[in-house]
């Protein structure tokens, strides 16, 4: 049985059908005028061979203006699979997404440089030494491969996490550009049995990570049937440019037929128009251009409509994921992806706050709720991420899991039908006839069926705010739980065949 996700029967939509059509038409026109600038020659050749107009742009960097006619886009879109399966080491963690079904799967991400440790030092009241309080203290440091292992372990045990995007940039002294990919893939896959998605640091490592996945899945065909890994590529740099290296990576991933998210992240105000109509027309054009290229490389390659739009802060012009408009853009993108019938990679929960606290909770919960309500299929919901996705904190990930349980509970569909109404009428008549007129005895079957949501899981005693301390205890408990590692024989083959994996990641060698 694959993971159930959260079905949002009647998703929240901001756009009318006419507005969706207008965005689509504007995107089609943008792709022909002005078109895109491509810094990747192979992409230019592929698009040109299928009918795009291409013109070399004079200058220091080799680049081309590519104008993609509407018919080329629409024809390519015909081969996009409406159903995308993301496999997993544990088959029960498989994710199956339909482009037209608003069923939400919650995914971690992104790659953060900073890992936030948590401690609880005790403070004594200045005028009364008998009064003490413990206050959380957050200490940032560079992330390591062991941190990524820890994060993968905890996310394995977080109920609401459906899939794992590597969320720690491994920066150990012995990690290089050449061995980073194999180590982040192995660290994640060895400590987590859910679907794993990642970007690639070096195209030269693509075949090594695919081979690693084949060994784990049980061979080339087994990996094709159960794609335990997928990729995310930011081939588009806004506005409207195909970047050379990531576009090259994207083309190669498509050739191997593995699922890939085509992602664009324009910033309204700087790399995209500040107005909603403008950023929507542009991001949609950018994502469609990427998807078109992918389908021309390998028709039928499974793709996700990846959208990470954001509004600029007015004080610094840096990203403001906490901005209200950021959630609006994301919800619009979900609707556009559904219009095309392509599963959507969406974004929520990214906050501007630098540490866990009230700002972090409010920013992330706001977007988590509203974006989840719109029904994206693959929701990168920033488990544990802070400071615009540059910091990761395990404690925050534990809090996020608890909050998503509440959101899932909220998104349950109402059960109002004839049998239910008949039962309720009977109940009301029965209670009305009693002297005490209480419905309490009818709570029990509903309570046992799990239909009643729980209290806040980190509720303090009395007036004390113990949220962080209680979440910290749970975090330690999760860290102590074992995970199902890749078996010893497969691990040995991986270390034998795949160069560059750090020996300390071999749990069997460590044990011996």
């Amino acid at each position: 049985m694959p993971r159930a996700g959260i079905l949002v029967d009647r998703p929240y939509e901001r756009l009318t059908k006419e507005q969706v059509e207008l965005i689509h038409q504007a995107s089609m026109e943008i792709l022909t005028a002005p078109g895109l600038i491509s810094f990747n020659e192979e992409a230019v050749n592929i698009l040109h061979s299928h009918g795009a107009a291409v013109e070399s742009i004079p200058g220091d960097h080799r680049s081309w203006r590519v104008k993609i006619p509407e018919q080329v886009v629409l024809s390519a879109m015909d081969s996009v699979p409406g159903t995308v399966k993301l496999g997993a080491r544990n088959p029960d963690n498989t994710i199956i997404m339909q482009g037209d079904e608003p069923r939400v799967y919650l995914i971690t991400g992104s790659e953060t440089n900073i890992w936030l440790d948590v401690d609880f030092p005790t403070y004594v009241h200045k005028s009364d030494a008998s009064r003490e309080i413990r206050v959380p203290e957050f200490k940032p440091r560079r992330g390591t491969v062991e941190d990524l292992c820890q994060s993968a372990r905890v996310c394995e045990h977080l109920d609401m996490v459906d899939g794992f995007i590597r969320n720690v940039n491994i920066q150990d002294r012995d990690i290089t550009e050449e061995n980073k990919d194999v180590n982040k893939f192995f660290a994640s896959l060895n400590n987590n049995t859910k679907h794993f998605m990642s970007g690639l640091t070096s195209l030269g490592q693509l075949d090594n990570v695919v081979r690693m996945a084949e060994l784990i899945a049980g061979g080339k065909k087994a990996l094709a049937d159960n794609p335990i890994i997928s990729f995310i590529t930011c081939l588009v740099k806004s506005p409207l440019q195909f970047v050379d290296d990531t576009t090259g990576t994207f083309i190669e991933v498509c050739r191997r037929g593995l699922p890939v998210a085509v992602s664009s992240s324009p910033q309204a105000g700087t790399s995209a128009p500040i107005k909603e109509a403008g950023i929507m027309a542009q991001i949609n054009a950018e994502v469609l251009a990427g998807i078109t290229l992918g389908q021309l490389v390998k028709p039928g390659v499974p793709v996700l409509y990846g959208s990470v739009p954001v509004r600029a802060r007015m004080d610094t012009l840096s990203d403001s994921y906490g901005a209200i408009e950021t959630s609006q853009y994301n919800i619009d993108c979900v609707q556009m992806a559904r219009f095309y019938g392509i599963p959507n990679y969406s974004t929520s929960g990214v906050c501007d706050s630098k540490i866990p606290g009230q700002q972090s909770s409010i920013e992330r919960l706001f977007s988590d709720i509203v974006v989840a309500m719109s029904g994206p299929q693959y929701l990168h919901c920033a488990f544990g991420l802070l400071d615009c996705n540059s910091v990761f904190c395990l404690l925050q990930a534990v809090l996020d899991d608890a909050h998503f349980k509440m959101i899932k509970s909220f998104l349950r569909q109402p059960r109002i039908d004839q049998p239910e109404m008949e039962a309720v009428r009977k109940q009301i008549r029965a209670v009305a006839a009693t002297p005490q007129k209480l419905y309490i005895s009818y709570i029990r079957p509903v309570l046992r069926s799990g239909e009643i949501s729980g209290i806040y899981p980190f509720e303090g005693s009395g007036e004390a705010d113990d949220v962080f301390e209680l979440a910290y205890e749970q975090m330690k408990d999760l860290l102590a739980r074992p995970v199902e590692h890749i078996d010893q024989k497969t691990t040995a083959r991986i270390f034998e065949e795949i160069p560059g994996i750090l020996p300390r990641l071999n749990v069997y060698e460590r044990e011996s």
Partner: protein
Amino acid sequence: MPEDIIGLIRENVIQGRITKDDEGMDEGMVGQPGVTELVEQALASDLRIQDIVTKGLSGGMEVVGQKFEAGEYFIPDMLASAEAVGVAMEILQPRLARSGIKTKGTIIVATVKDDLHDIGKNIVSILLRGAGYAVKDLGHNIDTQVIVDAVREEKPQFLGLSALLTSTMARMADVIQTLEENGLRDQVKIIVGGAPVSEEFAKSIGADGYGADGFQAVAVVEALASGTEN
């Protein structure tokens, strides 16, 4: 199978099943006799009232309390069991005196004049019945004089007063004062409760005890009954 009947009473108290139509906690119990039918069977089989009460009803409630403490049971479960015990005690009431079993006492409960809120008072009543007390519920919006008259006539050991409004909580003080004026104050222990009521308020109006919720109300009554109240 008389012993089995006592065991079944105990089990059905744990299940919180008053009659055969109740679902209880486990699957497939609808249609099997509940506490009401089982107590009647026990009486028809001439089982000792003492055993029905102590081994069946109280024995079941003891397990329910343990399950609640362990987080396995919630308040609706406790109430269902308490209600089952309360119903059983009503059936047994006429025979209790004859069999020499003393009840734990009688308590009159009422929501005071001008206050229509009675959910809390009703829950307290269920829990008190479940704990083995005879409860006379006067209802809500009850005149002070009606309460005083009931105390005079029924001679209960306890009087429980409830109010949900800041505007009606002062009526509790009226009741206590009128009981004093009628020379009845010393013959009854008075506990008060309700959302705006506090321990401090209870003391200020001369009440004997304060219950923040239904469980505390029962605990306060038990403490007053045993003379261990603070």
